[in-house]
């Protein structure tokens, strides 16, 4: 059974079509990078995956069910694009990462034994352990981005949906992030990374998908760069399954 399944999905913002008949099926352990130009529909596709948007035609299934089902959503690690956290009051890095465990414990649930270790491991995965007690908003943009990524990773979710997860992160740390995501996929997680530039992940991902004129096409790394240069995908296009 596919973990993520799109069938004939259409979506438009007003009169502007973004996705037009998208078919996609990703199984357990798949690691794909979703690339493409600004406004091509990458983030929209991720939001459809997790039920934040609803398709105007076609169906989206996550772990075999409606993605708006809270039971399904609790098994997903999601990181939206950008530094989007509310910033009025100070928040420690640990508090941000621990918030990723709240859906599993329930809104009225308490921390359980082992939660502290889960947070520590998530922070270690993004090389942020030493800054765990710091106020998030006093850190650099790249460090904040790593904390948001750790929040998605904490508790080892079955599905990882990450929108531009390496934006702002130092070049030398990006391979560590990519290797961590590969490790998660090897352990059975389905990983979808949205990225302007798949160079950060091309050594570790299974496939690069490009959204082109509302359709999802699979391309090689070389074809992706051809796509960027010429504005359209090279051969190898087709329905991504």
């Amino acid at each position, binding site marked *: 059974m596919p973990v993520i399944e799109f069938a004939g999905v259409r979506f438009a913002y007003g009169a502007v079509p973004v996705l037009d008949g998208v078919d996609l099926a990703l199984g357990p352990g798949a690691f794909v990078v979703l690339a493409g130009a600004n406004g091509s529909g990458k983030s929209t596709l991720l939001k459809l995956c997790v039920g934040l948007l609803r398709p105007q035609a076609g169906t989206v299934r996550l772990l075999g069910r409606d993605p708006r089902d809270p039971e399904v959503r609790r098994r997903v690690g999601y*990181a939206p694009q950008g530094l*989007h956290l509310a910033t009025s009051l*100070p928040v420690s890095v640990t*508090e941000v990462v621990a*918030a990723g465990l709240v*859906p599993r414990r*329930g809104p009225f649930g*308490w921390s359980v034994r082992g939660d502290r270790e889960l947070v520590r491991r998530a922070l270690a995965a993004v090389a942020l352990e030493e800054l765990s007690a710091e*106020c998030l908003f006093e850190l650099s943009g790249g460090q904040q981005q790593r904390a948001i990524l750790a929040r998605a990773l904490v508790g080892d979710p079955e599905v990882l949906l990450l929108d531009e997860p390496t934006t702002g992160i130092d070049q030398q740390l990006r391979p560590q992030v990519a290797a961590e995501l590969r490790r998660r996929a090897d352990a059975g997680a389905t990983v979808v990374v949205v990225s302007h530039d798949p160079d950060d992940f091309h050594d570790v991902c299974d496939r690069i998908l490009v959204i082109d004129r509302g359709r999802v096409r699979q391309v090689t790394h070389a074809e992706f760069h051809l796509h960027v240069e010429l504005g359209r995908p090279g051969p190898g296009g087709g329905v991504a399954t």
Partner: protein
Amino acid sequence: MSRLLADWVVRAYLAGAAVGLTAPVVGSFLVQRRLALIGDGMGHLAFAGVALGVVLGASPLWGALAVAAAGALFLEGLRSRGRLAGDVSLAIVFYVGIALGSVLLSGAGRFDASLLGVLFGSIFTTTWADVVEITGLCALVLAATVASYRGLLAVALDEETARASGLPVEPLNLLLLGLVALLVAAGMRVVGLLLVASLLVIPVAAGSRLAHSFRGALLAGAAAGLSSVLVGLVAAVWQGEIAPGGTVVLASSAIFAAASAVGRRAARRHPRRGLP
């Protein structure tokens, strides 16, 4: 000195301390979400509730609570549809609350000096029954906030991710505004409906200048709120003529100024730990 420990002052300390401690705890989540003015909106709506209580012969506190709770539902409806982003909708709610209250009270022939106590507080007239009512409401608010702390914080940090992760965002939002409604009703006697929202905001702002985590800011805010009420009440009793609601809010503002100065000094010593 004996006046500072008189029976009516002790009742004021107890009721005021309960509100001063509880308001910043709830207010922390509002401030984090940039919804600080919602407390003001509910205070204004609660004025119409007080008037309704007077007209119907019911307790003003329960009238305030009923209308503030209805206002919580209405304001959350506006917020969730994105119509509370601008300040016009909230301003209209302010005006309608005050106007409705004044019309109801004047129509009932009760538009008199006792209104000043509703608008600016009348803590020195609290009875032991009032103290029980106010501390009971505050205990309920504190217990509910502690029980839902992690969920409220996750939503306050990032509503989109909380929703995508399966948290019941709308029920948690309603719970938060319901707690604010309870707090507004409980705080009405302490600082009045026009100033009650200040205790939801100013101590939290003070706490945020001293802490590096949300929990730290919340606890520092609660300490600042408690101190504000006690200092304000002592000042009002000591002087003998001035309104305690005003002294409480001015005390909280002074604590905020002091916390800002301390925070700036700490930031200069440790640049990394700068102001939030």
